[in-house]
């Protein structure tokens, strides 16, 4: 079945990203298709490559990135939410005259239409939040 995932919270503060990751991984291992993982609200914080947790803790960002590499996941960070919270790719840095980027390469920044499209195209939308 074709599923999409919406994540409303950033890493570490809430379990939402962990739960979504475990769910997504289980769905992929069962042979389901993940059409898109959409990061919204503080969920955009899952997409910064600058995250550096202590060595004995899980690296939530890298874990998503590895899953994306393995299964060619489409992981989208909402542009409006990302701009508010300082998640920046090269295009955004140029547009908004910022001197740095921090997006993890497996994520892409795009519009809210991507969430709507995911809901239209997928048979299930599963939301993880606070």
């Amino acid at each position, binding site marked *: 079945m074709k599923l999409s995932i*919406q994540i*409303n919270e950033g890493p570490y503060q809430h379990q939402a990203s962990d739960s979504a990751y475990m769910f997504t991984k289980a769905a992929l291992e069962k042979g389901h298709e993940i059409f898109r993982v959409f990061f*919204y*609200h503080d969920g955009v914080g899952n997409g910064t490559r600058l995250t550096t947790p202590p060595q004995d803790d899980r690296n939530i960002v890298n874990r998503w990135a590895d899953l994306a590499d393995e299964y060619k996941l489409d992981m989208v960070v909402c542009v*409006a*939410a990302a701009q508010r919270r300082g998640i920046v790719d090269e295009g955004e840095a140029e547009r908004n005259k910022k001197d740095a980027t921090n997006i993890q390469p497996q994520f892409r920044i795009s*519009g*809210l*239409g991507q*969430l*709507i*499209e995911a*809901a*239209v*195209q997928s048979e299930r*939308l599963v*939301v993880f*939040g606070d």
Partner: protein
Amino acid sequence: MSEQIKKFLYLNRRAPYGTIYAWESLEVVLIGAAFDQKVSLAFVDDGVFEIVKGQDTSESGFKNFSPTYAALGDYDVNQLFVEKESLEERGLSIDDLMHLTWEDEDEDWAEKDSIRVVSRSELSEIMADQDVVFSF
């Protein structure tokens, strides 16, 4: 697939301002309106506070986004279900809410109310009838 029309319900259960959920979910509604899906909004629990009239953020330093709800009708978003029990639990009635309307193209642009107060059990049935429920 792009031709298919789904029933989308945006489930609003958060008060405005204390967190950004209400505002950012409204942004999804506005973007989503361009997609030609059958859209409705439900205001449940503290979500009813989002559409209370008389919001004034002039002394709090953030944007008053409540006027945006009045614009929803122009985006063909005109099914706003407000849960009766949620209102009553919070000491509110429909008179405390903004008067949100839309113009019906099929009836010579007659102005109609967007808000419909429904009971909890009616809303449960409305939710069950949806294809997708968005939660924020």
